[in-house]
C-alpha cells in the first residue's frame, strides 16, 4: 500500500503547482484568446478570427523569431560543446572554477546582462571598431541590427546549453573511450563514434532549453535591435501593455506555443529520438 501511495505523494506538490500556475492560467488564456470586442468590453464568443489575424498580421515576426532563435541555438551549441568538453575532460582541478564561471552570470539579473551588451556593442566601442575594420559591421553600427539580437540571445542562453552537455559528458564511462583507442580508432573517430553519441542526450536537452525560451524572448530585441528586428515576444508585449488588445495577444501566445511544440516534436522525432537512443538502439 504505502509503496503505491508514495509516488503520488511525491508528485503532489509539483502537480498542484503546475495545475495552479500553469494549467489554470492556460485555460483562462485560451478563453481570452476567443474573446471579441474592444478593450473594456471583451466578451467570450468563440472568435477564431483572432487566430487567423494573428498569423496573417505577424507572420514576419514569427519567422524572424524562429530564425533568430535557431541561429542563437546553433551558435550556442558551437560555443558550448568545446567548452563543456574541456570542463568535463581537460580541466582537472579547474573544473569547479570553470563550472562556476559558466553559472556566474546568473548572479546578475537578465536585464542588466542584456543592458551590458548595449555598452559592449556601443558604436564607439573598440569591439565595434574591430568588427567594422574587418567588414562585419556593414551598416557602421552593430547595435540595432539582427546580429546584435542574435549575439545577445546566444550569450544569455549559453549556460542552458553548457550545463546539460557537461552533465552528459561527465557521466560517460571513460573506459568506453579508452576501449575505442585500444581498438585503433583515431582520436577523431573515437570522438565521433563514442563520445558524441553518448553525449547526445545533453545536446538535445541543451538545444531545447536554448531554442524554446529564445524564440519567445523580447528583451534582447527590445534593447539590442531596431524596429526591424522585433520578435514575436515584442508584439505580444505591445499588444498586452500598449494596445490592451488582450484577445489578440492571447491568441498569439497560443500560436507561439503550438508552433514551438510542433517544431520541438519534429526535432525530437528526427534528430532527437535517434540521438536519445544512441548506439544502444542499434
Amino acid at each position, binding site marked *: 500500500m504505502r509503496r503505491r501511495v508514495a509516488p503520488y505523494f511525491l508528485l503532489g506538490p509539483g502537480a498542484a503547482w503546475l495545475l495552479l500556475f500553469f494549467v489554470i492560467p492556460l485555460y483562462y488564456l485560451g478563453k481570452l484568446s476567443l474573446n471579441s470586442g474592444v478593450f473594456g468590453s471583451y466578451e467570450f464568443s468563440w472568435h477564431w478570427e483572432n487566430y487567423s489575424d494573428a498569423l496573417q498580421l505577424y507572420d514576419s515576426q514569427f519567422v524572424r523569431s524562429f530564425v533568430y532563435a535557431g541561429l542563437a541555438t546553433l551558435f550556442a551549441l558551437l560555443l558550448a560543446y568545446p567548452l563543456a568538453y574541456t570542463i568535463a575532460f581537460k580541466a582537472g582541478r579547474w573544473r569547479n572554477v570553470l563550472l562556476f564561471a559558466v553559472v556566474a552570470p546568473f548572479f546578475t539579473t537578465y536585464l542588466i546582462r542584456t543592458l551590458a551588451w548595449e555598452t559592449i556593442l*556601443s*558604436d564607439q566601442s573598440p569591439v565595434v571598431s574591430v568588427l567594422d575594420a574587418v567588414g562585419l559591421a556593414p551598416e557602421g553600427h552593430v547595435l*540595432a541590427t539582427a546580429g546584435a539580437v542574435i549575439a545577445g540571445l546566444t550569450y544569455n542562453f549559453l549556460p542552458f546549453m553548457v550545463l546539460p552537455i557537461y552533465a552528459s559528458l561527465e557521466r560517460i564511462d571513460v573506459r568506453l573511450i579508452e576501449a575505442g583507442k585500444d581498438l585503433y580508432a583515431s582520436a577523431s573517430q573515437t570522438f565521433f563514434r563514442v563520445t558524441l553519441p553518448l553525449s547526445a542526450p545533453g545536446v538535445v536537452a541543451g538545444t531545447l532549453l536554448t531554442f524554446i525560451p529564445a524564440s*519567445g524572448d523580447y528583451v534582447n530585441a527590445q534593447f539590442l535591435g531596431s524596429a526591424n528586428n522585433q520578435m514575436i515576444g515584442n508584439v505580444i508585449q505591445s499588444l498586452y501593455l500598449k494596445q490592451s488588445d488582450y484577445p489578440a495577444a492571447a491568441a498569439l501566445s497560443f500560436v507561439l506555443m503550438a508552433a514551438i511544440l510542433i517544431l520541438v516534436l519534429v526535432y*525530437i522525432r528526427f534528430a532527437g529520438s535517434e540521438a536519445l537512443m544512441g548506439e544502444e538502439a542499434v
Partner: protein
Amino acid sequence: MASEKDPRRITALLAVLVATAALALGLAACGGGSDINGGDTESEEVKLEKKASGDVTISNWPLYIDKQTVPDFEKETGVSVKYIEDVNANEEFFAKMDPLLKQGDSGGRSLFVVTDWMANKMHELGYLQNFDKSALPNFEKNLVSNLREPKYDPNREFSAPWQSGMTGIIVRKDLAPDVKSICDLFDPKYKGKVEMLNELRDTVPLVMKCLGIDPEGASEEDWIKAIDKIKQASESGQIRRFTGNDYGGDLTSGNAVAVIGWSGDAVQLQADNPDIEWRMPTEGCILWSDNMVIPVGAPNPTAAEDFINYVYDPENQAQIEAYVNYVSPVESVKPILLKEEPEIAKNQLIFPSKSFTKNCTIQPSPTSEEEQNLNREFNAVLNG
C-alpha cells in the same frame, strides 16, 4: 521493455515541458497587474470634514517629485501619504486601472497623475470626480493663464496640471550641428543615428508638422500619412530605434546624434554633458501636461485636494520645480527661483517665453474611434 532508454527520453520531454511552461507563464505575466491596498474606505464621512486627515495614496510617474515635498506636506497637514511611483505609461496604467475603475474602485488611490488625453479619456468614461473648488484656493489663484481653459476641461473641473513639458529635438551638437527641424531628422546624412519616441501622440504630430500638416484637427488620413513617413524611415534604417526616455543613454554614448525627446530630460542631459542640446524644431514643438486627477471611489478625497492645494503654493512648487525641471503650471514660481536657483529660473526649457513656444501645438489626440486603428498602425511600425 526499453527501461534503459526511458529515463533519458523523459528527461528531454520534461525539459520541453518546463521550458514551454516557463515561456508561457513569462509571457502571461505581462498582462498581470498589482493592486494597491491602503487608504480609508470611509470616504463619505471624510468628505464631510473640513480639515484633511488620515491616509492618502498618491500614484505618480517615477522621479517626478523631490524627496522633501511629501514629508513636508505630512508635517504641515498631519496626513499620512503613501506615495507610489507606479505610472510608467498612460496605456499601461489605464489597462491596469480600468477593470477597477469600472466598478467604482480606485485600488486605494486617492490621486494619480496622467497626461491630458488620458485624463480626457478617463473623464469620458466617468472614472473621475470633480474637484471641490472651495478646497483649492491656491489652484484657483496660481494656475498659469495658458492652462486655464484646455479644450477637454474648460473650467478645470477635474484635472489639475502637475507639470507641463515640450516634445522636440535633442541633439549632440558636436555630431549633428545642423539638425534644426523635424525634417532634418530624415536627412540621410544621419542614417542609423536618429531615434524617435515610441509615443503615438508625441512622434506622429511632430512628423505631421514636417509634412506641413497642422496636427490640431488633423484627420485620420493625416495621421496615417505621417505614420507612413515614419515607417519608410524605419525600414530604410534611417531611424535606429524607437525609445522611451532611454534615448538619454544613446545620446551620451553617441549611438544616436539626434532624437525626438522631452524638454525636462534635455535639461538634465545638458547639465551632465555639454555636448547635448535641446533644439526647438523650426516647425515648433508639442506642448503637453500631466494632470492630477481624483478617481471615482477615491478614499479620502479631502486629503487629495489638500495635496493639490499644497503643491499650488508657489513656495512648495518651487521646491518641486528645482528638482523636476519640467515646465511648472504654477504662477510666481520664477521670482522665488530667481533668488534661490537663478540658473533654473533663466532656463527657457523650464520657464519658456511666449516667443520661444510660438509655433508649438497643444498635444493632439485622435478621436476614440480613430484611436484603435492608429494605435495598430503605429505599433506595426514599432514592431517592424
